[in-house]
């Protein structure tokens, strides 16, 4: 494990994290919307955005988004197409850097450090924040090499076999592939490929896993396997998931953020509250299918 890891997802450090929750992020009182403060006191904030604006050229994709994402919970981002939820996700690990036209204003804090500060290395950041994409995208390499890819990048190659096995077990894929580790990851089914991508992401032991509609390209059985897996992942990792599927958000998430057209974060609260008794009429209209 890298010595720069501030919070390793294991039981020993969990106690420390809880202590931290007593002293929340400095300056967090400045966050305006009252309902953003309702995050359960038992969980500390891992990711926080303050007045975050994102532009693609002239188009504004995110408008003044302030949110605090709690540790080791599943936070879902829902909203209609083009509402900016994926854009927000890609701000967290600075994947938007890869788009020339993207411009970011405001603060985005990960472990209390603004990831857009000049001294932040996006490569190092991404090693601590894993990502799973909409289309399963295993590399055209063997199953083993797919999982080992991130570990090899970071030269964490001692006990590689063991780490690969742990990651595949963590992604609920080990039993299905343990006899074919040398075969191409592309030979797996769509659902298996997506779990391989999850194994690849957790192999490097990140603190956060970002998921961009991870089940939207999968059939219902594979989707349900991924959902079960997300539930388990939240025991060790902070999971932020973008989804089009409101039932999925309701099933798997602890917190839900509703983005509506124009890149505006309209409401962020406990998932149950959002789905049963939202504060905003627009959110209720969206949830009940009157809009969107």
């Amino acid at each position: 494990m890298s010595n720069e890891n501030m919070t390793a997802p294991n039981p020993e450090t969990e106690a420390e994290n809880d202590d931290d929750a007593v002293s929340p992020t400095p300056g967090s009182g400045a966050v305006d919307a009252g309902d953003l403060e309702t995050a359960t006191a038992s969980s500390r904030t891992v990711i926080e955005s303050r007045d975050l604006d994102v532009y693609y050229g002239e188009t504004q994709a995110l408008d003044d988004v302030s949110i605090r994402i709690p540790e080791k919970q599943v936070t879902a981002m829902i909203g209609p197409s083009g509402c900016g939820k994926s854009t927000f996700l890609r701000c967290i690990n600075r994947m938007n850097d890869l788009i020339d036209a993207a411009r970011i204003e405001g603060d985005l804090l990960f472990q209390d450090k603004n990831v857009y500060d000049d001294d932040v290395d996006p490569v190092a950041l991404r090693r601590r924040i894993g990502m799973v994409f909409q289309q399963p995208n295993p590399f055209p390499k063997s199953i083993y090499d797919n999982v080992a890819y991130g570990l090899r990048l970071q030269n964490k190659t001692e006990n590689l076999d063991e780490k690969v096995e742990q990651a595949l077990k963590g992604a609920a894929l080990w039993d299905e592939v343990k006899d074919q580790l040398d075969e191409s990851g592309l030979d797996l089914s769509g659902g298996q490929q997506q779990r391989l991508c999850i194994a690849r992401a957790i192999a490097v032991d990140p603190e956060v896993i970002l998921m961009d509609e991870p089940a939207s390209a999968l059939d219902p059985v594979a989707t349900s396997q991924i959902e079960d897996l997300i539930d388990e992942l939240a025991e060790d990792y902070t999971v932020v998931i973008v989804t089009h599927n409101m039932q999925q958000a309701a099933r798997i998430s602890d917190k839900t953020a509703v983005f509506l057209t124009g890149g505006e974060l309209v409401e962020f609260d406990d998932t149950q509250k959002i789905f049963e008794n939202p504060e905003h009429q627009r959110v209720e209209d969206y949830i009940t299918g009157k809009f969107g």
Partner: protein
Amino acid sequence: MSEEPARPAFAGENRTRSAKESAIKWFLFVCAALSVFVTLAIVATLLFDAIEFFTRVSPLAFFTGTNWSPKIGEAFGVLPLVTNTLAVTALSALVAIPVGTASAAYLSEYASDQVRSVLKPALEVLAGIPTVVYGLFALVYVTPALQAVGIPVGTFNLLSASIMVGVMIIPMVSSLSEDAMSAVPDSLRQGAYGLGATKFEVTTTVVVPAAVSGIFSSFILALSRAIGETMIVVVAAGMSPQLVPSPFGSIQPMTSAMVQLATSDLAGGTAAYYALFAIGLTLFVITFSMNVASNWVASRYREEYE
């Protein structure tokens, strides 16, 4: 006008039209078949005249002889020509493969749209230069430049000819390899970036391995082009075949030996005349097998991404 009831408009005169359609179809087929026919005719000519040659000179003497002196002494050992061709090919590969692959990686992975819009056409211009100009350039500029930096090359030499053959095939390597790299789905790059890979790591550990079939087949195609290259070696490499060629001295690859034979006052029906076709057939077999190998590599290592 006839008394018959008017026929529906779509049931009208179709016989002339269908005759015209089928004439067009046949004309197009003949055009398409022409190139196949010409290819077969060339192969047949090569084959028959090469067989004629082998009735005068034994294949063993041809393929294992170490002395090429067709006019004086009637020595028809093709080996020196083959080793000289291989020497040109290998040295030009040393230039073209690294430079071509690096340009492809740059164009596909690093260059901004603006830079690419300048560099790509420039590389295509390189591919459009007549090869005799490359040969002249090798003779008039590269050789003196090599001499100026203290490399003891002769006026005609293997090294400068090979360098220019290498430069000539860079666009083949770079453009085919770039196509292969650009065809790698962006989702793979995103996946690697998401795991904290640098741009260089993304390029070397994901893009290049995923594009390896296209990259290798570009190498093979470029090398088979180098094997068949004629004008550069005729102008700049000299006319003295060496079984063990020195990079600094004069040599003579197969193509150049054919030019020398064909442009000399050659009596038809002599062994020297038929030797032209024997070398030609040998060259053809080499480049043809390389093209087949290229296709095989491309299909064998192709990854299906979707």
